[in-house]
Each structure stands twice: as C-alpha cells, then as structure tokens.
C-alpha cells in the first residue's frame, strides 16, 4: 500500500510522485486532498490530489519541500511507501458548465489548480489559465496546464520567461481585452490569493480560492484549520478547502499559518544538521 511508483523533480525542491492508493484513486474528485504521514514520528500533512488513475489505482501528488516533513517525503524513492494516506478529504470543487472560467495558479499553487482546470474543461467550459512563478526555473506544469486550457498565459516575476509581472497583471490584461468570466479559481501563496480576490471582486468576477491552513486530523475534529469567511469561522478541512475569495479574511489566515514558524525552523535546522552529521560520518567511514 501507498507505494511510490514514479517520481520526478519538476523544479528546485518541487517533486511530482505517483502513489498507489486504489480506493482513494477511485473516489477522489477535483479539489480534494489527502493527509499523509511519512514515518512513525511524523506529522500529518495535507496535499492536494493533483490527479488520479482509477484503473491503475494511483494518485498524483506534487509538493514543494518547505520544511522537515515535505523534505522527508521528498527523500522517499520509487519503491518506498508512504506510511499513512487518509482521504479523499474536503469538499470537491463545484464543477458545472459556467461558460468561461479563469484558472489562476501561482508557485506550487499551479498543482492544485490543475485538476480543477481539467474538470472545468471536461464540463464544457472555455478555460483560460494563468500560471505564474518567481522565475523560469520555478515554473511548473506548463504543459499539463496547456493541455487543459483553451488559452494559457505564463507570468514570471522577473521576466525570465513568459509575461513579465504578477498573475494579477495578467488578470487585468484579460479584463482589459474585454473578457468576462462566469467563474474563476485562484490558488497560490495566501498573499497572491488575497490580491487576485480583491482584483476579481473589483471586476465582479466570482472567485474561488483553495486555502492551505495548518491541519491536524483533516476530519473536522480539531478546529485547528479554522478560517474566517464572511465573519464566520469555518473549518477548511470539512467546509472547504475552497471558499469564496471575496469573503475570506486572508490576513488572519496568514497569521494563523505562521503559528509554528519558530518551531518549524528549529525542526528543519535540526534535521539539516542531522543529515550533515550523517554525511560526515559516512565520509569518515569511507576514508
């Protein structure tokens, strides 16, 4: 169970894996996620299900190594197994034929946008997508997104590839072209979702965002993932992860995400040190 069957590196620190998980592969719908644990002492971390093959019984996960747990996940190789995978969690994206849909992904956020764009396309929508990254090296999934979009705009913050600028600039450009959107989705760093949502609201575009709050169980049992939406406290893992971007309190989400910053830093520093120590030890043994 949970064996890693394929593994690719998409960009520096971003990995794309295919994992065996037959029941979830059959069940999952666009917008849902899993929670995994890499090892016995590990924490439970949520990752979006980027895609699945129900026949092969596999899931596709794409993750960025930002701390100890994602780094440890990144160290697993083909043939290794992930200790626990629970899912599919969260409510599926509301998919229907809206007409024209805008899909915006920034950084690692392109990964969770991909299944939604694909489902929107399949439901008969005209899909226009914008994907952005800090620079060319960090851009992921361009081909995958192209395959499910009627039109794809790429932006980089430094202009090293595609359009120079932020994804918000690309949204403004589309609006200036006179395009209207019946629905849109934006996933990326919270700050990006905050600005895209504000822009969408200004232009009267409905916008869904997928929130990545800190989670523990993912089943509505702990309330650790709560965010404020329209002044109401919601649990991201069961009421979301998608919410109406016009109504989310992004500032609060950013603060809540930083709850353990100090400890996470300690934990990954210690982890790095241990790894270095082990390497040194290995070298010493060899010499």
């Amino acid at each position, binding site marked *: 169970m949970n064996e890693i069957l394929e593994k690719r590196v998409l960009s520096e620190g971003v990995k794309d894996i295919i994992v065996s998980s037959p029941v979830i592969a059959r069940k999952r719908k666009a917008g849902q996620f899993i929670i995994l644990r890499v090892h016995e002492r590990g924490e*439970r971390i949520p990752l979006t299900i980027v895609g699945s093959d129900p026949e092969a019984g596999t899931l596709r996960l794409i993750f960025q190594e930002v701390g100890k747990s994602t780094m440890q996940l990144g160290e697993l190789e083909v043939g290794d197994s992930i200790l626990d995978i*629970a899912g599919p969690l969260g409510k599926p994206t509301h998919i229907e034929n809206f007409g024209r849909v805008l899909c915006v992904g920034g950084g690692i956020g392109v990964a969770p946008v991909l299944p939604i764009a694909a489902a929107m396309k399949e439901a008969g929508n005209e899909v226009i997508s914008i994907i952005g990254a800090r620079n060319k090296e960090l851009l992921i999934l361009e081909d995958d997104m192209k395959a499910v979009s009627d039109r794809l705009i790429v932006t980089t913050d430094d202009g090293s590839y595609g359009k120079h600028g932020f994804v918000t600039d690309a949204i403004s450009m589309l609006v200036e072209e006179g395009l209207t959107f019946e629905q849109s989705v934006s996933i990326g760093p919270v700050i990006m979702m905050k600005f895209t949502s504000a822009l969408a609201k200004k232009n009267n575009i409905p916008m869904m965002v997928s929130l990545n709050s800190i989670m523990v169980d993912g*089943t*509505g049992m702990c309330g650790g993932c709560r965010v404020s939406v329209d002044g109401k406290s919601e649990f991201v893992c069961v009421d979301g992860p998608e919410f109406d971007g016009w109504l989310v309190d992004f500032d609060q989400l950013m*603060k*809540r995400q930083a709850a*353990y910053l100090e400890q996470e830093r300690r934990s990954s520093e210690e982890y790095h040190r241990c790894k270095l120590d082990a390497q040194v030890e290995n070298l010493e043994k060899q010499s």
Partner: protein
Amino acid sequence: MTENTNTPEMPKKEIKKKPKKPKIPRQPMPEQDPQVRAHNFKEVPFGYSIETAMLEASRCIMCKKPKCVDGCPVEINIPGFLKAIRDGEFDDAIKILKSDNALPAICGRVCPQEEQCEIKCVVGIKDEPVAIGRLERFIADWEREHREIAIPEIPEWTGRKVAIVGSGPAGLTVAGELAKLGHKVTIYEALHKPGGVLMYGIPEFRLPKAIVEAEVDYVKKLGVEVVYNAIIGKYLTIDELKDEMGFHAIFIGTGAGLPYFMNIPGEDLVGIYSANEYLTRANLMKAYDFPNYDTPIARSKNVAVIGGGNVAMDAARTALRLGAENVYLAYRRSQQEMPARNEEIHHAEQEGIQFNLLTNPIRFDGDDKGFVKSMTCIKMELGEPDASGRRRPVPMEGSEFELAVDTVVVSIGNGANPVLTEATPGLETNKWGNILADDDTCETSIKGVYAGGDIVIGAATVILAMGAGKRAARAMHEQMMSMELEEVMK
C-alpha cells in the same frame, strides 16, 4: 458491616451472615508527588501492590445482592472478582472481570467510579466505599505484567461479516464481542491509531498509551482486522460497506468529535486551541516530545483553559506539563457544578492549576502578529436552576477583568461530527446531529446498521460507550444468526 446498619437497602440475609470487620480503612493508592509529576507525562498513580490490593479487597463484605453491580453500566460481577483478589486467586479474578469488561485496565483508570459502582457500595454508607476501580486496575495490570494474555477459543466462522466504524471504546467492544462469537470483524478507523478518545484525548499521565495499545492488541488477537486512515463517508460509504462489500451488519461508533467554540470576539487568534486540537497534538502526535516527534505545539507561560469537565482538567494539566508557569482554569459556575471527576479536580489543584470559578471569558485580544495576548472575563453569580438542575450563572455587571495569556484551550464540549451522517442518506439524527438508535438494540433507522457511544448519547463516558457496544453486539449477533446462511453468503 455491623448490625446497627439499618438502612432500607440492606438485605436482611446479609445481616445474619458473619461479616468481616470493616475496620480496615480504604487503602490509598500511592502516586507521584504533585511537584514532580507536574513536569512529566508519566502516569500519576502507581497502582496498588499485591498486599494492598488483597487488603483492600478484604474490605468487601461480598453482598449477596450487591448494590455496586447495579451501579456498573456493564454489570461486572464485582463481589466475585473482589473475593478472588482477596483470596489471591488472581487468574480467577481476571477471568471474572473480563467476562463482562474487555477493557478493565482502562475502566479501572478512567471510569467515574465514585458516581457509579462505588457510590452504591454498602460499605460506603458508614465508611469509605471499597475501592472497586483501583482493584479493577490492579488486577488488569497484574495480568498484563505477569501473564501471557489468554485468548479465548474462537468458534468456527459463522459466515457473517461485520464492519465497525470507529475504534473507540464502543467500536472495540462490539468488535471483541462479535469476534468471540465467530464473526469476521473489520474496524474502519479515521485516524492512524486505534482507541478513539482513549488514544488522542485522554493524556498519557492519566491513561498510558501502552495500555490502550495492549487492550487493542487483545481485540486484534481475537481476529479483528483494523483498517486505519479510513474515514467512512469519504473513503467508503455505509451504503458501499452494506451493498457492495457484503457486510451483514454495521456498527457506527464515531464518537463526539466536533469541538464547540464560544463564538466570542478574537477566538480565531493564534494560540487559541480547541481541547481536541491541543490534546491531539500532545497525545496522538506526541508534540510534548517535539522535535523528536514532528508535530509542534505552543509552549507558553500563561495558559487559560475554559471549561470544568474532565477534558478541561486534562488540557490544564497537559499545559502545566508542557512548561506553563501559570495555568488558569476559567469555569462559569462554581466548583460544585463542575462535571469533572473529583479525583481529577483534586489532582489538578494539587499540581497548582489556578481555578477561576464563576468566571466567563467574553473576548480575546491579540498582538500585531495575531497571537492571543489577553483574555477578558466577566464574573458570574449563580441564579435560578436551569434545565439541567444546576443553578444558572448570570454575569455580574461591571465585573470585567483582563488576564494576560499566551495560549487558550477551549474545552466547553463536543458535538457530533457530521462527516459520516451527511454522507449516509436515510440515517436519522436528532437536531444536534446525534444518530437515533434504539435503546435496547442500538439499531438505527437503517436496517442492519447499528450505532452507540458518544455519537448517539453525546459526549459521555467510556463505560457507557462500552455498555452500548455490548447491547449492540447482542442484537447484531441475533439479527445475523437469524439470516439464512444462503442470504448471508450471497
């Protein structure tokens, strides 16, 4: 008991019998010093020695019509196992105990004995009651430490398959009972560890996790299979279990896993936890051993815990062990109304938890990074009794005061988690989301689907969950055995 006890409950016969002299006082259970234990996660009481246990058991006068048994939701043959302990027949004692209670090491620790079996004990009329819970714990521990746990002989497979949702005490009880009757049992558990609240909620210092694991192991040895990370309603549905996977009966024991918040300003600030989150991080994820374990938890100086139940005591005592200098317990009624067990309140006081009674938080304020920094409370006074019979607390105008805190744990109760019920059409619930089930059989509105424990009666106790499990198992067994085998094998 002596002749001059002329209480109406005393059956005549017993008075004739030559009683043991009840002069031996109730034996205390040695425990870690409060100053020491407030800084470690080791279990607080050490348990009885063999000698003390035999002495304490000898305080029981072996009533012919034992009142204590009426107080036990699973009707353990209490005089039976006490007599065996008194006589040093420990193997017999454990056999008697286990025939009615599959999880004695757990119940002996966490049952509210003082309100159940012990409150009814006749010795308690004049003296202190026999320490039934401590003796139950003693004998279960003795077995675990001295014996290869005996596995009863399992009858041949009946051809029937049972699915159980949730591995809390309710689910484990149904699993154990039905496995012993020869049914094939599979438990589906949402988390990565079994035990429900026993594992993720009740702290290590009150219920060591190794004990929960040993009790679960016993159930597994009866042939029960456990599938982890399986959230029913998401991973598989009740309909699929029933119609596609061919389970002949299903039991739902999903507990009361939905934390209530107070809905007051500032409650979403960083550092404000539900008790479920705080305890899950600490217990299930072992955050107290961070960074050896990867899950972090706030380690703060000033912690406020809101509530007055066992859960609040557990959270407060956990905060202390995580290094807090001040732990305030804010409870809106007075100490008499606290739902927590006396023993827990006593332990908490000994360890230095500061009780702020008749105190209700009304607002939280945070710093510029969004971390909670203070809690504003209002003092309460007790007014007329409310529906629960307890006097209703009413705020005292102008009595607001502010307390500097950096962590808050909200433990004002849990409701029914809707993940499973929302995904199960036809499963009837009440207005709070609890599943409706028959009192005797535990059957729900869906034929062949049973439910019990906290998901039915709301947050309650381990032993009540187990009692429901036993009733459900009996009904499920009957129902399945009444099916034609052909129907069963289809």
